[in-house]
């Protein structure tokens, strides 16, 4: 739920509760005031009756005024004046109505009379109804206004926040330039923006450092690797070496070769990820693949792998070195994970390039396949080959995907 909805919910619940409580209090207060008013009116009327009795020495006629008056003789003189609620029969409207009554003692000629005057509550009820109605209408208007205010005013207030949020969502560490935030009137948002700016600048700087570190470290490793290789190349010239020494040297050669390929792959990844390669040219993919096929001929022959090709002419604009690496990796992958007497099918159309190869019967996990250092159990590769493929494709906005159909592993690049 959005913050504004939370706020709306809370404010509406509180408003309704407060208004409801107010309405109850209001109702009772008005009722009490009105009853006091009625009581004082009734007292006045009793006074008028007593005055009449004292002046004329008789009980007044019934229709003294609109109020209902009853007289009755009582034996005792000990009768305190009291007010009470009652129900009476309205003769004009022929209905039972709620009324307020007063009972008092009138003395006439040594006899005690009880007098009860009843007045209708109707006028008060009308007043209460009108007040209730006004309160209700006010409540509805208030809620509506609150809702509209929250919806539009809050939306406007939160706009800088959503702008900053959008900037954060689209934040790409490898794209140069800082996060742009809007200045606004809300202090909290300004504070947030300042914090976001500071954080993004710091993250970018750290990333820059890391990038340079990776690049420098990889370059620095090249010279020691060159020394090891040169030493080995010199060592094998020694004719006094024994066969078992050659085995050891072979292993060192392999490890050194692997280390240097790993290093070069990491450097390449850093370069691709940082967009440092921009030597684009138009490349005929058909002839590039045909050339690679010739280059890998011997490797294919060694495992007796048959290659079926269906290549259309397709020109792409890309870095020649990267396309070279891309095809190298696709070919190496298709050969390395193939089986003896296996097959490879290469299809190039105007919108896609597909490498299919026979190999392990089980499909590979596509979610891990293109990740760094994910490699098959039997693989001697660096574990970066397909990551490089993925990154090269991403650089040129191509989609690379893996599927497993029948017994073939398919790697498809959609241009």
């Amino acid at each position: 739920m959005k913050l504004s909805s939370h706020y709306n919910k809370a404010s509406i619940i509180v408003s309704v509760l407060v208004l409801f409580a107010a309405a109850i209090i209001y109702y009772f207060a008005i009722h009490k005031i009105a009853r006091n008013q009625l009581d004082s009116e009734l007292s006045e009327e009793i006074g008028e009756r007593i005055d009449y009795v004292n002046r004329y020495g008789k009980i007044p006629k019934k229709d003294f005024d609109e109020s209902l008056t009853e007289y009755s003789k009582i034996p005792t003189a000990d009768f305190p004046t009291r007010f009470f609620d009652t129900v009476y029969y309205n003769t004009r409207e022929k209905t039972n109505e709620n009324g307020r009554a007063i009972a008092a003692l009138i003395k006439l000629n040594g006899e005690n009379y009880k007098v009860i005057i009843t007045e209708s509550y109707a006028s008060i009820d009308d007043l209460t109804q009108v007040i209730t109605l006004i309160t209700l209408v006010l409540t509805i208007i208030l809620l509506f206004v609150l809702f509209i205010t929250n919806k539009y005013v809050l939306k406007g207030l939160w706009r800088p926040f959503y702008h900053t949020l959008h900037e954060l969502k689209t934040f790409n560490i490898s794209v140069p330039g800082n996060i742009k935030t809007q200045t606004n009137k809300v202090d909290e948002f300004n504070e947030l923006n300042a914090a976001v700016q500071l954080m993004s600048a710091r993250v970018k700087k750290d990333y820059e450092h890391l990038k340079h570190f990776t690049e420098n470290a990889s370059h620095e490793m090249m010279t020691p690797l060159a020394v090891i290789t040169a030493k080995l190349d010199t060592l094998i010239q020694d004719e006094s070496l024994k066969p078992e020494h050659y085995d050891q040297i072979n292993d060192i050669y392999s490890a050194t070769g692997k280390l240097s390929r790993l290093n070069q792959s990491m450097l390449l990844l850093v370069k691709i990820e940082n967009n440092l390669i921009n030597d684009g040219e138009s490349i005929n993919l058909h002839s590039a693949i045909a050339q690679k096929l010739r280059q890998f001929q011997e490797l294919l022959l060694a495992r007796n792998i048959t290659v079926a090709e269906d290549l259309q002419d397709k020109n792409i604009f890309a870095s020649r070195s990267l396309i070279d690496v891309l095809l190298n990796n696709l070919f190496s992958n298709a050969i390395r994970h193939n089986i003896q007497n296996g097959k490879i099918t290469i299809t190039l159309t105007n919108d896609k390039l597909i490498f299919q190869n026979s190999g392990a019967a089980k499909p590979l996990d596509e979610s891990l396949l293109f990740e760094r250092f994910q490699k098959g159990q039997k693989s001697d590769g660096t574990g970066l080959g397909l990551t490089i493929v993925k990154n090269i494709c991403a650089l040129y906005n191509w989609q690379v995907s893996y599927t497993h159909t029948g017994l073939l592993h398919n790697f498809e690049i959609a241009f």
Partner: protein
Amino acid sequence: MKLLIVEDEDTLRDNIASYFTEEGNVCESCGTLDTAIEKLSGYNYDCILLDIGLPDGDGFTVLDYLRENNKNEAVLIISARNSLDDKINGLNVGADDYITKPFHLAELKARVAATYRRKTFNTNNKLIFNEIIINLPGRTVNINDTRIVLTRKEFDMLLYFIANKGKVISKNAIAEHMWGDEMDMHDNFDFIYTHIKNLRKKLIDAGCADYLKSVYGIGYKFSAE
């Protein structure tokens, strides 16, 4: 051939020098930019192996010096950076070739030989090793008077072996030379054997002496001995 090796890593420099030192080659070496310029101002060389990252400056300065003084040495750059780095891109800085660290000495030697051949192309378009006569521009090979037909890879391999004659070359070095070092293959280089066997057979069938020898499991040696 007279060579100048400019490389600040002492052990690497010494190894390169010892690998290149043979009959007919003279190697001089230095480890700083200053001494390199000093040597170049006093002597002429056929080829310079130039490391780009030197302690007292950029190796490119040597190239500028050569251009300004109209010197015609072949230059092969040794760099820790590869073709994807802007710095080295295109070789339009005036070098004849470049090699990326780490490299095999056999590869370096083959590159130097090729660079040197290109520089002195007009006078020497034939490469002769005893009875093997290679016509470089035509890419043909004769054993005495018998023409043999080699595939492109076999031809390249023969040139590679001759450039490294008398040296044991590891299978790794051969594989990298023939199939490129980015090619992330198995450490199984058995397929090389088939190739070398074919080349050897073609040479012997045409009456050539058996110069190619297998050296235990490590590699091959092309030698007249």
